[in-house]
């Protein structure tokens, strides 16, 4: 089992793409493996015949265990994996040092993981890794160290620290797609069922206790009139015709990004001994995926046209749901948006994604009776709730941002100001 991400300690074999006896070529996908972050391909590292499959679909095995044996045609390699000669745990690194390929299945390929957050005291990490993590906003507590005694070293962060400006714009659509995979069994005799945590749930659990616990949250809610935004959206979509569609979510993302450029105080990271105010806006978009959620990032969302935002959002959401996001696509956000509108949620509070200082929770757009000019009329209304880290954002600061955002949504032309 390869370590397909630095935090990966074990992997669940989802599906074999090759069967025993199949010819395989180096580079071909042998199987799909669920890691703590995503479902990733396990790649054959040698040409040959898949002689033996040692792990069945659905089975979870620790990194370093043999999952299969690739043999040269006609060769018989250690009749059974269990009685194979001395174990040869491959050290980190990969591939032949001096050319050539050989019969080996598992060579770890350092990928990455880790989610944003500040530096973490009490974590074993090299001074260099600490500096890189601090710059890149990676929470060292969430990184599995590959150095002596689990020390976090540079290579554990290499891919994670893909700087925002270096990464290609990636993005998200606040996505539908509920997590409903735990089936409700028809009445059975057992009063409960224990389901082991999947890799992604473990990561979510670790991440969230570092947020709501230590981060002093407060919440601001505002109701926004979406009539003008809806008219603007209809007009835009009529004009676009076959070229695409603008969604409410795209408009909310764009408006949030633009509002952040006017309220840098809310576009910030809390970094223990300092606050980093970002000059760029990278919006994290919570995407529900089967049995979890992940927050891919639309880079420089303030600079992108609506259609591009929509396109990126969809692409990233698709990737997130098929669990093929690259680490650079879900790290480095400066502020996040979570949209549960599609689930008919009026209003909710979202948990901040550290080290970010705020997150916007978007409810459903729903017609309501509203008093306009002394008359009760139906208007489409939207409830926005902003969660703020009080160490960075004060009540008035957050309110000012929310007010700008509300202004932009109620009068979309204000986005051009």
């Amino acid at each position: 089992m390869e370590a397909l991400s630095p935090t990966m300690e074990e992997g669940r074999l989802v599906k074999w793409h090759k069967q025993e006896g199949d010819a395989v070529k180096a580079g071909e996908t042998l199987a799909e493996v669920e890691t703590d972050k995503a479902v990733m391909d396990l790649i054959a590292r040698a040409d040959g015949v898949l002689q033996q499959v040692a792990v069945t679909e659905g089975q979870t095995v620790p990194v370093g265990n043999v999952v299969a044996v690739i043999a040269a045609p006609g060769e018989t390699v250690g009749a059974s994996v269990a009685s194979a000669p001395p174990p040869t745990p491959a050290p980190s690194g990969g591939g032949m040092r001096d050319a050539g390929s050989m019969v080996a299945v598992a060579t770890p390929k350092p990928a990455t993981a880790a989610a944003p957050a500040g530096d973490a005291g009490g974590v074993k990490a090299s001074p260099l890794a600490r500096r890189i993590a601090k710059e890149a906003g990676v929470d060292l507590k969430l990184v599995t160290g590959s150095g002596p005694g689990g020390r976090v070293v540079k290579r554990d962060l290499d891919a994670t620290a893909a700087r925002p400006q270096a990464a290609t714009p990636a993005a998200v659509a606040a996505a539908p797609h509920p997590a409903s995979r735990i089936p409700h069994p028809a009445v059975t005799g057992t009063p409960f069922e224990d389901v082991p945590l999947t890799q992604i749930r473990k990561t979510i659990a670790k991440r969230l206790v570092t947020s709501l616990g230590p981060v002093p949250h407060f919440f601001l809610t505002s109701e926004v009139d979406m009539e003008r935004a809806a008219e603007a959206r209809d007009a835009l979509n009529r004009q676009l015709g076959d070229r695409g569609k603008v969604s409410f979510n795209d408009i909310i993302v764009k408006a949030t990004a633009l509002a952040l450029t006017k309220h840098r105080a809310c576009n910030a990271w809390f970094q223990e001994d300092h606050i980093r105010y970002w000059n760029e806006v990278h919006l994290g978009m919570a995407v529900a995926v089967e049995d979890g959620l992940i927050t891919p990032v639309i880079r420089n969302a303030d600079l992108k046209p609506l259609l591009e935002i929509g396109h990126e959002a969809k692409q990233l959401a698709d990737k997130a749901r098929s669990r093929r996001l690259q680490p650079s696509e879900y790290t480095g956000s400066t502020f996040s948006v979570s949209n549960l509108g599609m689930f008919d949620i009026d209003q909710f509070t979202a948990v901040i994604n550290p080290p970010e200082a705020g997150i916007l929770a978007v409810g459903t757009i729903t017609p309501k009776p509203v008093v306009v000019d002394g008359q009760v009329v139906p208007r489409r209304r939207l409830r926005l709730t902003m969660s703020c880290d009080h160490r960075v954002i004060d009540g008035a600061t957050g309110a000012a941002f929310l007010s700008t955002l509300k202004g932009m949504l109620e009068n979309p032309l204000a986005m051009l100001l």
Partner: protein
Amino acid sequence: MANQFDVIILGGGPAGYVAAIRSAQLGMSTAVIEKDKLGGVCVNIGCIPTKALLHSAYIASLLRDAKEFGVEAGAVKTDYGVAMQRSRRVSDQNSKGVEFLMKKNKITVVKGSGVLQPGRKVKVGSDSYEAKRAVIIATGSRVKGLPQIGLEINKTTVISSDEALFLEKAPATLAIIGAGAVGMEFANIFSAFGTTVTLIEALPRILPFEDAEASDALAKSYKKRGIEVIAGAKVKKGTPAKDKVTLEVEANGATRKIEVAAVLMAAGRAVNTENIGLAECGVQVSERGFIKVDPGLQTTAPGYYAIGDVAGPPMLAHKGMREGVNVTELVAGKKPHAIRYDNVPSVTYCHPEVASIGLTEEQCKEQKLEYVAGRFPFSANGRARGTGETEGFVKILRDKKYGEILGAHIVGGHASEIIHELAVARENEYTVEEVELAIHAHPTMSEAVAQAALDSLGRVVDM
């Protein structure tokens, strides 16, 4: 069965004997097969005797300059034969030391040439030995000549380090072909023993794989003491006669003839992969001739491992020793820390010494890394002034953004000892700031390391 062991190691050089000791420490029954003396090239005809000779050379040059230090040594007379005899005693002591270590660790030493056979077996003469867990190939390397231009090693006028280490007297004139570590060290030795030395290097500068500033410093130092240095030179033809060799050397667009009493070949080494049964066991070698190994040092034949020079560059004893430890731990089912091949120090023990680790400035440029170079010359170091070792410098290349130590280069007295501060720093990912923060004793040569780190941060103190 008497001839069965957990681990059998082919070759008792630095990689092999260290592997044997670690293997025995881990409780595995171990045998080493060695056709010559234990300790291999390193102990017998490499690292160790040359260091003894270099020290003789150092004493000679020290005495020549002694007057300035208020010490009259009279006319300095040198005798290469005596120095050679002393170096042999040092080598023999070390080889005996390895023998003792084999006994102490209850390792079986089989004298003879081993040939691998399928089924993790090794044949020595008519005896067969079987390894239950692993056969480790550690057969090392040897010097090679350049027969294609007429310079086949004939052991009299065309020699290698193997013969140079046993000469009774220093030749009057000597051309050394190849200015890597071996060529540089012998140029230093023979020059101090009165030989007129011509050092010829095919690549554009001597010590071609070191930082260019190090090469330049050494070229300057060598020229100053009368060693002729010809870099970017092509030896077109060598014509050995009974007691002399004529070389045709093309450099700077002109061809010239050089006549010397002997030529020392120091242009590369060949690995010992022939006639040891590799192919029969399915052990493949790469196009460059090294045995192919995976990150766990296993060859293409399961159960057969390779370490040291045969397993690929850098061909350095300390790299092989570390592989010896790692491979046996892997075989024993442990999970050793992966070897960082990018953090192997490289040392040339000429005077002044050259030691380096990591990238050269040229490599930083090639890789388009954003770096800052910090420098500190020993001429500004109090201790170096006191001992008269003001040649050279410390140079640290740091990553511009994070301060990672990308490479470090030291030219100067004791550079081989000073470099390890930077090896430890790099192994543990200390940045230049941690290096500088560590208080360095005053006055020491090592202070130059802290000052170079400071210089890379733009706040050097002593300059």
